[in-house]
């Protein structure tokens, strides 16, 4: 039996974008200069986790699932270039990137049911835009599947799934069974870079596109739990004092003296 893994991936503003480039306009975060979007970093790690499982079990298929109002195809195809097999885009103007992900969770869960033979859903622990960490957990609850969060390693053996979960001072090993939802953290390690063959292969794969009609979600009323009131850049009130000595070592000495003067040490 082929192990079918769905990886959820979100297109986000590049988190490496300098803070000064973030502009807040009309309750939306815009990027001032010409910064291109990326796949959410944790979701790339989810792709990596799926590829490692595929390498370990042999017979596996990886479908990447993304939900949004529009996509930069060259960006959202990166998981294919890394080695994923299929791409399904849930694309509809209603799937806007709002702070409340209720509709997106519903759409992703319905899509997973529609795909049908899914054994495992792997997602990044959170997206680097709203940092909600809600969507994968919502999918698990909506599908009534078991959940394991913040994984640094996933092993699949038949229907048994073994996960190493990151803890503040170490990790724990948890066991569950398929079908299940797993979220992964950066501790999993760096995602691989696509190679030339992967990039060429990805070009040939056409994404499947489903809209709200296809998902039978059109006109569906959703209860929103969060209404955005305002967005603000955090204010910084601190007055910085730069310690300057005759040379760098002298600055170090002066820093110690200054901290003593202020009774910090």
């Amino acid at each position, binding site marked *: 039996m082929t192990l079918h893994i769905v990886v959820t991936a979100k297109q986000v503003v590049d988190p490496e974008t300098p803070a000064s480039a973030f502009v807040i306009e009309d309750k939306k975060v815009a990027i001032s200069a010409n910064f291109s979007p990326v796949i959410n970093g944790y979701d790339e790690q989810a792709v990596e986790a799926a590829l490692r499982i595929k390498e370990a079990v042999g017979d596996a298929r990886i479908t990447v699932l993304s939900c949004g109002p529009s996509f930069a195809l060259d960006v959202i195809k990166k998981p294919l270039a890394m080695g994923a097999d299929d791409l399904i885009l849930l694309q509809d103007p209603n799937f806007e990137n709002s702070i409340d992900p209720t509709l997106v969770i519903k759409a992703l869960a319905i899509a997973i049911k529609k795909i049908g033979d899914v054994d495992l859903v792997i997602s990044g622990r959170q997206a680097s835009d709203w940092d909600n960490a809600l969507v994968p957990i919502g999918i698990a609850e909506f599908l009534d599947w078991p959940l394991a969060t913040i994984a640094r390693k996933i092993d699949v053996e038949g229907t048994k799934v073994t996960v190493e979960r990151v803890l503040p001072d170490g990790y*724990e090993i948890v066991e569950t069974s398929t079908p299940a939802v797993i979220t992964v953290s950066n501790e999993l390690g760096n995602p691989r870079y696509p190679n030339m063959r992967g990039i060429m292969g990805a070009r040939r794969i056409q994404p499947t596109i489903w809209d709200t009609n296809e998902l039978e979600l059109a006109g569906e009323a959703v209860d929103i739990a969060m209404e955005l009131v305002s967005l603000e850049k955090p204010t910084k009130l601190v007055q910085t004092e730069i*310690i*300057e000595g005759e040379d760098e070592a002298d600055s170090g000495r002066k820093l110690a003296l200054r901290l003593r003067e202020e009774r910090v040490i």
Partner: protein
Amino acid sequence: MAKALIVGEIHNQELAATTLESIAAAQILEASSIAVIIAGYDIESIAEHAIFAGADHVYTVSEGPAADGEFDDLVNAAYKVAIEIKPDFVLGSKTITGRDVMPRLAFRLGTILVTDCMSLERDDARRICATRPTYGGNVNAKVACLGEPTVLSLRPKSFEVNDSDRSRKGEIQEVVFDSNIRTRVIKKIEEQSEGISLQDAKTVIAGGRGLGGPEAFSKLHDLALVLGGAVGASRAACDAGWVPSSYQVGLTGKTVTPDLYIAIGISGASQHMAGCSNSKTLVAINKDEGANIFKEARFGVKGDWEKVLPAFIEQLHELID
């Protein structure tokens, strides 16, 4: 009249500081009654402590998988209590347990979690409004909570704990619910960092990408020893494998609030600052003169840490010995 339910936690066989913070937050939201659920073994005195701290009802789970800390049953037990008492709002913390349990509880109650709240207030229409970091800490979002009930998780160390009153009275009751475990913990593996725990330390010395490699962390440990502190790191240093991930301070790592935080070779990305910006005094040492950390620090030295640090440590020895 607003009824609050708090999903409490126990840490080292004591009521967790984060749970005391949740009680304080419930009071900010003018709760007329506060219920707390806790799970663990031998927790009677902890339940009493919750009452002294402000709880009117304490629901306990004192045996079974929830008492062992299994998330599945913590959700099941909290859900059972929520269905019974119908709170107007539910509070928990964005701890390792809360990150998993709170969203699931919210979904099960037919709403979604407002996560990582740094401050809470009531607006003119008496709606609960929460301020929370987004975009890696670059942007703060204020949201009005419309969920019934509203379910919130609080950023640790964001709410000031009130004094306990040992004369307070309340009720303690064991929760009866159906256990259902689908994801089970097999074993825990501890990777203790050396010395004082990062979250309890009064002084934290943190290193980042600018240190250039794992060897430099031994210098940071030397400094931590002189000042009686703990060593932390930025995500970049952890991801590079220089130190274990348990060192990580930041949005997805630990939140620390020491009296003194010394950031060495850390650029000060919002992601990192989200974990240390509430430190009393922040000191930055970095040779990149334009580094963002110099906008956030109280004291800064713009220079090469390899030259600054030995002289700094030597001077400290003179001052402290």
